[in-house]
């Protein structure tokens, strides 16, 4: 048994080595094609925003997505809070469209996962994305991580975990790291009940990193969503 | 007779001003007790001490033999008072005021009693009007209604004729006499006017600058034999000489040249007049006032009293 698994590992390594024959550009194209198979989806999600100054409970809602860049969180009477409009929370949106230059950065191992790193530079220098770095699991042809440098919204890091919808390359859980600016309102305006702050231990005040966690509970894929869904306020 | 209220050595100062100074007196059941003193003499302060509104620096008040501070709530059930002005809730009707005060008296007072009291004070038919629309006289009468709604034995009426017109004063006097005679109330009535007290009181107390000047039965204090009669005549030495030799000399008091002054019972005035005329005296006027009154006048300088008596 042990022998067998040793062989299996060897075969696995070889095969991955063989895959190296695929260039970065080819790999990127394959990924994009796979993603494009999902034209739209409606997903039940739970979103948790972890930003130091925001105290928001987990928001349950329906997330609508339509390729290439339409997205909306519907909270059924509640408020929806999303990152500012330029960047959506889907992988396909973290990767530039149009013609790009792909730089192959080789393989890294993160959390025991062997991932190929690609740097993608869009040729259109007017677009929102200046540079995207993606970590690809070549075996499953899935994007495991992205790091996108945007024109206006800083650098956004995304980590994805897959489950039930792996065949569509749709994640079950997405964690997005965002840079957050400081938030401060004059006390005279808010007339705070000070006691609260004084009693909680002072956290790292300069912690400006935040995360947004999206748990996808179920997807309905390629049902053909009307554009009107996104225009509604 | 049984003593219903007794004050012993009441003393009260406000800052440096001594408002009441070692004042003692007693009121017997059934009396109408006059409490006389000029404005600011300490009447109101005394009355407030009697009902516990002002706490004395020294001295005690006894009601029916019980010290007031030991039985305030119980004792107040048997006292009805108007203090200074009959102030009420102006935005409420007379009926509402009366009903409220009845409820506060800790006695089970029936609606019937309210009607009865309104009848006594003569406000029947006006009870539904707002008190703020009442005349001063109606307010005084409503004050008395409030004071007596719980049928107390002792009524304390502080200047009940204040602000009333002559008719009102006369009505009030009749009401007080009726409360005493027909309803058997013991009444303490304060005033700065002697004649007012004189007309209703059986006993009286006079205070000046917080101190007792005099007290006793009105009939004693105002004994007719102490009436001063002033006869204005043209100066005539002969008359004076014959007077000194006559029986009238016993009543003669020192006076100026234009007048003769006698201290005697006023019933003697007609015979005195006859005698003077017989002696050839030119009598211009005869006026009498009680010696006590002139005494009171001297200390109080009360213009109202002067106007009435001279």
């Amino acid at each position, binding site marked *: 048994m042990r022998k067998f698994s040793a062989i299996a590992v060897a075969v696995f390594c070889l095969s991955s080595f063989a895959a190296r024959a695929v260039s970065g550009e080819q790999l990127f194209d394959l990924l994009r094609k796979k993603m494009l198979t999902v034209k739209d989806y409606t997903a039940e999600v739970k979103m948790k925003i972890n930003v130091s100054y925001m*105290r928001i409970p987990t928001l349950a809602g329906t997330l609508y997505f339509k390729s290439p860049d339409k997205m909306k969180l519907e909270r059924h009477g509640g*408020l929806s*809070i999303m*990152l500012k409009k330029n960047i959506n929370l889907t992988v396909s949106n973290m990767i530039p469209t149009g013609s790009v230059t792909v730089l192959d950065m080789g393989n890294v191992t993160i959390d025991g996962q062997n991932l190929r790193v690609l740097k993608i530079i869009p040729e259109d220098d007017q677009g929102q994305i200046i540079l995207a770095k993606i970590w690809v699991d070549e075996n499953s042809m899935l994007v495991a991580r992205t790091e996108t440098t945007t024109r206006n919204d800083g650098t956004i890091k995304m980590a994805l975990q897959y489950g039930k919808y792996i065949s569509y390359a749709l994640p079950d859980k997405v964690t997005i790291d965002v840079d957050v600016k400081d938030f401060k309102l004059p006390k005279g305006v808010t007339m705070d009940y000070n006691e609260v702050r004084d009693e909680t231990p002072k956290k790292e005040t300069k912690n400006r990193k935040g995360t947004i966690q999206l748990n996808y509970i179920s997807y309905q894929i390629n049902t053909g969503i009307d554009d009107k869904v996104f225009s509604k306020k | 007779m049984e003593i219903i209220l007794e004050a012993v050595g009441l003393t009260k100062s406000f800052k440096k001003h001594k408002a009441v100074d070692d004042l003692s007196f007693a009121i017997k059941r059934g009396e109408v007790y006059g409490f006389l003193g000029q404005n600011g003499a300490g009447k109101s302060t005394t009355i*407030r001490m009697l009902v516990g509104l002002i706490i004395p620096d020294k001295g005690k008040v006894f009601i029916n033999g019980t010290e007031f501070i030991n039985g305030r709530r119980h004792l107040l059930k048997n006292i009805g008072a108007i203090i200074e002005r009959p102030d009420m809730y102006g935005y409420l009707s007379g009926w509402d005021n009366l009903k409220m005060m009845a409820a506060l008296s800790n006695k089970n007072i029936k609606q019937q009693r309210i009607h009865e009291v309104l009848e006594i004070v003569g406000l029947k038919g006006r009870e539904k009007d707002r008190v703020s629309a009442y005349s001063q006289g109606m307010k005084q009468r409503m004050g008395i209604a409030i004071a007596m709604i719980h049928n107390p034995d002792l009524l304390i009426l502080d200047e009940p004729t204040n602000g009333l017109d002559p008719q009102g004063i006369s009505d009030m006097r009749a009401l007080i006499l009726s409360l005493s005679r027909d309803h058997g109330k013991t009444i303490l009535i304060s005033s700065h006017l002697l004649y007012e007290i004189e007309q209703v009181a059986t006993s009286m107390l006079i205070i000046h600058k917080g101190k007792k000047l005099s007290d006793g039965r009105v009939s004693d204090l105002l004994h007719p034999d102490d009436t001063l009669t002033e006869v204005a005549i043209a100066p005539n030495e002969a008359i004076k000489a014959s007077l000194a030799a006559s029986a009238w000399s016993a009543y003669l008091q020192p006076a100026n040249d234009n007048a003769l002054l006698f201290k005697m019972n006023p019933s003697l005035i007609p015979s005195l007049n006859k005698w003077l005329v017989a002696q050839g005296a030119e009598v211009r006027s005869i006026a009498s006032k009680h010696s006590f009154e002139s005494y009171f006048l001297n200390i109080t300088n009360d213009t109202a009293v002067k106007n009435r008596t001279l």
Partner: protein
Amino acid sequence: MIQLLRIELYKIFKRPRTYISFAIVTAISFIIQLAMISDGKSFIAFALQGVSEQFDIHGNVLNGYLIAYIILQSLLMQIPLLVALVAGDSLAGEAGMGTLRLLLSKPVSRMQLVLVKFMGSFIYTLLLIIWLAIIALFLSLLLFGQGDMINLKSDAFILLLKDDIMWRYAAAFAFAMLAMTTIASMSILLSAFADNSIGPIMTTMGIVVVLTILSNLELPLFSLVKPYLFTTHMIGWKGFFDDPVPYAAIGKSAFVLVAYTLIFLTATILYFNRKDIKS
């Protein structure tokens, strides 16, 4: 005592002045609601400036819960004045009218009278707060609908889910009631000193204004006294709109308010029992 309380309530609610407070609460609420109907969007945009740079917020932000919160916040200064209108008048008004000597020459103890004045003011305040709840909360919900509530603090953005809000309002109104009871007891104390009602009403207002300023000033000098000022604790109702709710702090605030109330009440009884009624 119950009889005395009934009479007290009868007097309070027979007087036109009492209803001015209800009218003022209604008017202020209406004005804010109207302003929000016409100009709420830009108000929200302004308030959310800091957040909307980075986040898109969609949905009924300007809902009844938020409007009610805004109204409550605005009325923070006015309600004590309205409470003082009745509580400050309680003893001084009777003195001014001359009815105090009428009451106290009846078989009523002075302590009873003070307690009844306190209870009367309490009931009036309770009704005022209930009225406020109806006008500020329920009417706003009717006009602006339900929704998740955004609560902005100087250093935090708090979102409360709509099903998680009503109990907070119930608790907040109860706390506001406690805070206003403290104001009422202070007003009654001031009222015991005075022989006309303007003095205690104005003094109550003055104290509330000055202490509120002290409570809100960010100066080291004042931070020493701040925890001891009741105005610092009066806004404890806001704690219920925080997440997590700072129960320890709210409990402490409630304790301070109760302590102040008892101190004011005891001082009133002690002073009033010895007071010479000269009015």
